[in-house]
C-alpha cells in the first residue's frame, strides 16, 4: 500500500502555518502562566487530614492578612498548592501558615513542599532556559549540516521550531503552568523529535543516490512510505512510556509529561508533513555521482 503524502500537502502546510502563527500571537500577547521558577515567589503545598473546602483555606488566608495569593487543588481534594507573591525568603512563613490554617480549619496539616525563588533567580532561569533552547537548536542544526546537506538541516530545523513553538503555544493558550520542567520538556522534544526526521532524511538521501532521474516529489513520497512503519513505531513506544508518566507519575511530573507527549505527537506529524515536503522548495542536489558514498 502506497500512501500519497503530497496529496494534502498544501492543507497541512497551511494548517501548520496557522497553528504556528497563532501560537506566536498567543505567546506574545497572552504570555505564559509562569511557575514560581520563573516569576519568583513562594509556593507551599499542603495536605490536610480530611477533605477541606478550598474556600475555607481562602478565608483563613484572608483573615491572616496574606495578600496576592492563589490557592488551587493539587491532584486530590485534600492536597492544595498555595502561591504567595513573597519573593524574599521568610524563614518561618511555612510554619506560620501551617499554624494559622490548623487553628482556623481545626484540621491537622502537613507541609509537603516549600519553594521560594527570589526575583534575580527567576530572571536568570528564564534567560538560561531561553538560551538553552536556542543553543540546542543551533547545535542540532550544525549536526544535521555535518551529516546532510544544508537543505536537510534547514528543513529539520524548521520542523523543530514548529514543534516547540506550537507546544509552547498550547501552554500559553490554556494557561498551563510554565516552569523549568517545561523547558526541560521542550529540550527533550528538540532532541527526540528530530530522530524521525533523520531516519526519513537518511532514506531520502539513499533514494536520491539510487535514482537521479525521478521526480523529487515521488522520491520523497517513496521514502516516507519506506520509513512510515518505523517512524510511527519509534514514536509510539516513547509515547507509551511518557503517557504512563502522564497518567501515573503524579502531579509534579504532569506538566512535563504533557509537554513531551504533545511534542512527540506533533514532532511525528511534522517529520512527515513538514520536514520532508519542504525539501522540494530547497533545490536539493540531484546529481550524487561525484560524491563518495560514506554510508555503509
Amino acid at each position: 500500500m502506497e500512501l500519497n503524502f503530497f496529496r494534502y500537502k498544501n492543507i497541512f502546510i497551511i494548517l501548520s502555518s496557522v497553528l504556528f502563527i497563532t501560537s506566536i500571537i498567543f505567546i506574545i500577547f497572552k504570555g505564559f502562566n509562569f511557575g514560581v521558577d520563573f516569576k519568583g515567589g513562594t509556593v507551599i503545598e499542603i495536605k490536610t487530614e480530611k477533605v477541606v473546602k478550598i474556600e475555607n483555606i481562602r478565608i483563613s488566608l484572608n483573615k491572616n492578612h496574606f495578600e496576592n495569593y492563589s490557592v488551587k487543588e493539587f491532584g486530590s481534594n485534600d492536597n492544595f498548592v498555595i502561591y504567595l507573591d513573597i519573593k524574599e525568603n521568610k524563614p518561618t512563613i511555612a510554619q506560620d501558615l501551617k499554624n494559622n490554617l490548623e487553628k482556623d480549619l481545626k484540621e491537622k496539616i502537613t507541609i509537603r513542599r516549600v519553594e521560594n525563588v527570589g526575583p534575580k533567580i527567576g530572571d536568570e532561569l528564564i534567560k538560561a532556559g531561553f538560551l538553552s533552547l536556542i543553543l540546542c537548536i543551533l547545535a542540532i542544526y550544525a549536526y544535521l549540516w555535518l551529516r546532510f546537506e544544508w537543505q536537510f538541516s534547514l528543513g529539520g530545523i524548521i520542523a523543530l521550531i514548529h514543534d516547540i513553538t506550537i507546544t509552547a503555544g498550547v501552554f500559553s493558550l490554556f494557561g498551563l503552568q510554565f516552569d523549568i520542567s517545561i523547558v526541560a520538556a521542550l529540550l527533550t522534544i528538540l532532541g527526540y523529535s528530530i530522530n524521525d526526521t533523520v531516519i526519513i532524511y537518511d532514506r531520502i538521501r539513499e533514494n536520491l543516490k539510487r535514482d537521479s532521474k525521478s521526480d523529487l516529489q515521488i522520491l520523497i513520497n517513496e521514502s516516507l512510505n519506506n520509513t512510515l512503519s518505523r517512524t510511527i513505531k519509534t514514536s509510539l513506544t516513547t509515547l507509551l512510556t511518557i503517557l504512563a508518566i502522564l497518567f501515573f507519575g503524579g502531579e509534579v511530573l504532569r506538566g512535563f509529561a504533557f509537554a513531551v507527549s504533545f511534542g512527540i505527537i506533533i514532532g511525528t506529524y511534522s517529520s512527515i508533513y513538514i520536514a520532508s515536503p519542504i525539501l522540494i522548495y530547497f533545490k536539493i542536489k540531484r546529481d550524487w555521482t561525484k560524491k563518495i558514498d560514506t554510508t555503509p
Partner: protein
Amino acid sequence: MLNFSKLKIFTIIIFLIFSTYIFLGNFNFFKKTNLFLDKNINLGLDLQGGSYLLLEIDIQPLKIKKLDDKAVEIRKILREENINYKNFNIAKEGISFEINDIKNKEQTIKLLEGSKTKSDFFDKITGSSQNEKKEIILKIQNLNFNINFSEDFERKIKKDAMSQSLEIVRKRIDQLGTKEPNIQQKGDIRIIVELPGLSDPSTFKNILGKTAQLSFKFLKSSSDILGSEKIKSKIDGSILDVEKRLILSGENLIDAQPGYDQQNKQPIVSFKLDRVGANKFANATKDNVGRPLAIILDNEVISAPVIREPILTGSGQISGNFTTEEANQLAVLLRSGALPAPMKIVEERTVGPDLGEDSIRYGIISFVIGFLLVFIFMIYSYKIFGLFANIALFFNVVILLSLLSLLGATLTLPGIAGVILTVGMAIDANVIIYEKIKDEFKLEKNVIIAFDNAFKKSYLTIIDSNLTTLIAGIILFFLGSGPVKGFAVTLCLGIITSFFTAFTISRLIVSKFILTKKNEIFSLKWN
C-alpha cells in the same frame, strides 16, 4: 555483524553479571549481607525529603567598608603632607576628592600610587608585598581625584569573602547538626546548601540569613567625641543613640553558650573573650561603671545592660528577652563567627518526607506500566524478536541503574522520568533494526546476510538519532540544577546504554537465534 567471538560473548556476559551485581546492591534486602559493594544510587532531596537552599553574598557593603578603610588611610596621608582638599566623598563608584592647589597635584599622585605598596593594610589582605597587580585605579581630572579598586582587587575581595563565608556556613550547619549536609560553592557569590531529611528548615534559614556582626558600644552620653548613630532596639522597638566608638567586636569572642540567668531563669547567652578582648573590655568597663552598654547584632541593639562593675574576667552574658530557641541560635551564630558580607537566601526548595515517598511510589508505578506497555507492544509487533528486544531492554535498565550507582549519581523524580523515557527511546534502536531487516528481506533472500546487512545499515542511523537527543541532554545538564539535572543525567546515560545494549545484547541474542534456526526463519511473521 552476526559473528561474535567467544571472547566477546564472554566479555558481554561478565559485564552483564557485574551490572546486575551492582544493581542488586541497591536493594535493602540484599544489602543485609556483605556480598555487595557500597555503591548506591543516592535519592535526591525531592525523593527522600529535605531542603535545598541557595545563598547569595551581597558584596557591596564589604566593598564600601574596604573603601572606608582606604579613605581613612588617604586622609591621613594628605594630612601628614599638608595637602588641602575638599569635597571628600565615598560612594560605590570610589573615593573622590578635590585638591585646592594645583602645585600639589604631582605630589598627591605620587603619594596615592605609593600608598598601596607602603600600606600594610593591603599586604595583610593580599598576603604578599610583591603583588604586582594594581589594587587601586587612579583617575585624575584637573584637580579632581577618583580612587577605586581595580577589577583584580575586587575579584580578590569577592574570593576572600566567598571562602570565609563558605567556612562560616559550614561551621553554623555543623553547630546545628544535621545528617550529611552538602555545602558547596556555586559561581563566585553563591553557596548551595543541601540538608537531606529535613522537613522544617526554619532554624537553618534563620541562622544562615544572619550576618552576625556583633559589637559592643556605649549609649551616647554628653561627653562624646566621635559622634553617635541611631540604632533600633530589638527589645522594645525604640531608637537608641549609640556612640560610634567600638569597644569590642565579635572577633574577640572565643566561645558562646546558651543558658539561663540564675536569678530570673530567663534564657541568656554567656560568652567568653580572648585575651585581647578581655583587656579591652576590662579597660572600657572600668572607666564607665554606671553607663548603659549597647550590644549590637547586625544593626539592632539586642541588649542594653548597665555596667554595674568592671568586667575583668573576659566573660559575660547577654540577656535580651530571648526565648530558649533564640538564645540557642544566638549562641550558634556567635560561636561560628560573623560573615564578612551580608548573605541572603535567594532560592529554597524543601520537600517533606511524605511527598518524597509519594513521588517514589508514583515513579515506580509509572515505570512498571511504561515498561509493560512497551513490552507488550514489542511482542505484538515482532513476536519472538520483540521478546529479544525486551530482554535487551530489561538489561538496559539494569545497566543504566548500575551505572548511576557506580557514579554515585543522584536520582530525582525527573530523573526517574528520564529512566522511564529512555525505556521508550532505547527500544527505538531495536525497532529501527527490525524494520531494516524487513527491508532487507525484500532485497536479499539469504537470512543471515539480510540480518547482517540490517545491523550494519542501522548502525549510523541509530547513532544519528541518539546523538541529537544526547545534545539536548547535555545542554539540559548545564542549564539545570537539582531535579532537572537529574533528568539530564539519566537521559544522557540512558541513551548511551541503549545504544550499547542494542548492538551487543540484542544483536547477540538475535544472531544466536537465527544461526541455530536458519531454516525456520521464513515462517516468522512480521507484523
